[in-house]
């Protein structure tokens, strides 16, 4: 299993603040996915990044894949309470299974 380290593990911020979450590995992945899991639900895919250096935007969320395809970051601008949840990164290579990080738990308070 290829290890994916996510940081920080927990983040509690106020509405309107910006934040960045990191996903790092010593392994190269063909692509990397970000999922969000809301309380009481299963994870849902937000985005897949494929090319080294790629940047993808999803409204206030910006995802970046590292040039060497070993790491990724998620930046949220002007966080809202609806952004609260567990953010998981997952590395994709050949094969059926994904390599999940342990997640960053985000709480955004009004």
């Amino acid at each position, binding site marked *: 299993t290829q290890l994916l380290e996510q940081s920080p593990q927990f983040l509690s911020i106020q509405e309107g603040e910006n934040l960045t979450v990191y996903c790092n590995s010593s392994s190269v992945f063909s*692509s990397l*996915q970000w999922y969000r899991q809301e309380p009481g*639900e299963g*994870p849902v*895919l937000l985005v897949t990044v494929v*090319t080294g250096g790629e940047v993808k935007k999803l409204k206030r969320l910006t995802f970046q894949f590292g040039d060497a395809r070993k790491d990724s970051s998620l930046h949220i601008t002007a966080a809202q309470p609806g952004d609260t949840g567990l953010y998981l990164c997952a590395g994709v290579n050949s094969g059926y*299974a994904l390599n999940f990080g342990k997640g960053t738990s985000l709480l955004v308070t009004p």
Partner: protein
Amino acid sequence: DVKVTQSSRYLVKRTGEKVFLECVQDMDHENMFWYRQDPGLGLRLIYFSYDVKMKEKGDIPEGYSVSREKKERFSLILESASTNQTSMYLCASSLLTGSGALAKNIQYFGAGTRLSVL
């Protein structure tokens, strides 16, 4: 929309009981997965299946078995439940498409079953 349905949201069982967790998907996906999710440990893969009657061990298969008799259904079995199997169990399905950098492997998750073993 893909739907992955887990039969129970909450289960309470006693130590030593045989427990069945059921998962059904409606998108004709080839692959199905069982994870457990614990605080601080993230998602850990128990077993997966890439075809009917085919199964592969994940990272933590001890104490579990699985069954896939039909494409849409994947069952997780705890032969003799123990307190350390108290956890959130998540089922997922996926369809592998493409190859190399173009490979797509999106997993669709159920809402989870929170199992307590007393």
